[in-house]
């Protein structure tokens, strides 16, 4: 009786590249395109090449600031629902997600600032902080946890990688990188296997394994198109390994990067006043 469903427990140990990128955009000035990769391609060591690849992936979704609209479709055994939300981010630490639809949850907002998450509930006019004991619980009924929103790690800095496949896979030129967390990295899984488009240099698929090396969830990336001036996969889907018929799909409708977002946006006061 005293515990949440086991599945949400498992989800606690996970992070999602895409959503993280969007929700807590890293404050690196500009995005220097594919410059680091080109340098690596000329380099001899595979190590250098992996580092450059991950450097590129890290910056794919991150920016100094961002603002946009996305939809999140959650499909579980018990319910299906689609939410439309507006998102803002500033630096790596601040992000705000506000639900636009469905009507019942319109205006419900999630504010992330540093390691804390607050929720604003407009109809009852309350701001509540998510307690640490509930960081492992599902965020908005999705397959993401609250923890996924605040956990920040970098592929380049927190992992060591090795190229484990290179060539055509299902007719797509693919580089497969197997990433293992560094000993002190703030990472909770055993390894991540990522397939990257060899020429587009965006992720195709990421498989997340727990510390016992069991697959916990997979993440699919597709619908590559121009979003806010960047060529990125506009659709990302996470599938929990223990419930393959369930999924959470995020689609970027529109997005602008580095157009400046007011810091004041992320205060609790503004959260309530909005």
């Amino acid at each position, binding site marked *: *009786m*005293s*515990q*949440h*469903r*086991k599945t949400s427990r498992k989800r606690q140990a996970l992070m999602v590249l895409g959503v993280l990128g969007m929700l807590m955009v890293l404050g690196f000035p500009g995005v220097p395109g594919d410059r680091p990769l080109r340098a690596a391609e000329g380099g001899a060591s595979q190590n250098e090449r992996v580092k450059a690849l991950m450097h590129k992936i890290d910056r794919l979704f991150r920016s100094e600031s961002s603002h946009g609209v996305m939809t999140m479709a*959650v499909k*579980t*055994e*018990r*319910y*299906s*629902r689609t939410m439309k939300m507006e998102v803002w981010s500033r630096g790596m630490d601040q992000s705000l997600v506000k639900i636009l639809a*469905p009507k*019942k*949850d319109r205006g*419900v907002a999630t504010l992330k600032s540093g390691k804390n998450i607050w*929720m604003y*509930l407009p*109809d*009852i*006019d*309350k701001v*509540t*902080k*998510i*307690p640490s*004991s*509930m960081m492992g*619980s*599902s965020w*908005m*009924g999705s397959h993401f946890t609250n923890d996924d929103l605040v956990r920040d790690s970098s592929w380049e800095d927190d992992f060591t990688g090795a190229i484990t496949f290179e060539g055509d896979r299902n007719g797509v030129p693919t580089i497969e990188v197997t990433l293992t967390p560094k000993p002190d990295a703030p990472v909770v899984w055993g390894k991540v296997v990522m397939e990257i488009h060899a020429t587009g240099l965006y992720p195709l698929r990421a498989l997340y394994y727990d510390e016992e090396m069991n697959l916990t969830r997979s993440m699919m990336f597709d619908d590559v198109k121009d979003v806010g001036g960047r060529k990125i996969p506009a659709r990302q889907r996470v599938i929990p390994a223990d419930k393959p018929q369930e999924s959470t799909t995020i689609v970027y409708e529109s997005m602008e990067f580095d157009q400046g977002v007011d810091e004041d946006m992320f205060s609790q006061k503004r959260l309530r006043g909005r």
Partner: protein
Amino acid sequence: MTPHHTHSSRARMLVFIAWRNLWRNRFRTGLSIAAFGMALSMMIAYGVFIAGEMKQMRGYATDLVLGHIQLHREGYVKDQDIYAQIPQGLVKEVRDHLPPGVALAPRTYGFAMGSLGSLSTGVMLRGISPEEEARVTKIGSRLKSGGFDLSKPVPPRPGAEAVSPRIPVHPVLIGHQLARTLHAQVGDTITLVSQSLDGSIGRGLYRVNGVLSPIEITLDRMGVVMTIETFQELMIMEDGVHELVFSTPDSSHTGPLVRQIQQQANQWAGTHALSPFGGQVTVRSWETINPTLAQTVNMAGTITVIVSLLFFSIAGIGLLNTLLMSVFERKKEFGILLALGMGRGWLVAMVFLESIFLTLGAALPGTALGVYWGYLLETYGWDFSAYLPDGLDFMGIVFEPVLYGHMTLFSVLTPLTALFAITLLATLVPAWRLIRFQPVEVMGG
């Protein structure tokens, strides 16, 4: 002189001699009687205490938490799956066919996040039907502050965080530990946010109408009790409940009622489709639900018997020493009696009589004292609140720190029987020695 006459007069004489023998060494006999009487009275008080503790445990478990019988969907028992609901139709079916005296209370369960001011924590929701719950459990009488009335919210506490009057507020009761965690008092308004059954975000404002005394660990630490209607509104649960709790006047024989309700549920499920999630309907007695507690409670009698035997075995060794001493002291005397033609059987009988007199002498005041102590325990209880201010928690259930005794014929007769059994056993040794005495040897020795 007929043999019969001889026998009865000898027997009377023997009784007399045995009685007199007992008082030849007043100090030793008095000491033995005092030791045995004391031991007996302590054992009786112990038995009363254990029986009371077990009765209290059983009462707590069934009257406050578990009821006597519970009905769930299997999925709920296994994973606390909130989608494993008992359909309203089945609730009605069971409710309409309750045997006389049997009461039923429906409950719902869920999780949410509760917050007050800047504090927040995970909470367990329990939806109840207050009138029905009051017929099955005494939870309504176990409030630390506030009242059990869940019909309307109490007025806000002066100085509490203000709430806009246009937002509806529903009444709830919260666990005592949870109240401490959130710094909540009666009259405060807490916010609950949950993941509803349809995946949306359930939320609302809830007035603390009462704070519950510790009853159950989870309820105490994270429990928020509300009406089933309030629960359904928050969790967007349209129909059904998670648990049916039954109480029956014949609480020691739940078996037939368990089978009857199970059969009723199976029949209903056979003609009405159950929802795809949740599995079959399962009916269990409280002993099946909390077997460790049930076993502990049922062990009370065994514990009393074993402890009595152990206790008196030690006392028995003391008695053995006394009896052996008194027999050896009187070796010459026995030799003379044997030489005069007294049968060995009579001598053995005399020693047995002595030990029975001794035991009786201890049993009478010992029982009286034990029963008096038992009466005190039963009436005034034993207050452990200095050591256990929050009560004693065992198997998820919190017991009051004041333990009351429960005097039964069993709790008095068990130590008494054990005392007699042990003394008679202890007498066997000197009796056996006596049988082997040779008159010439012992008189000469």
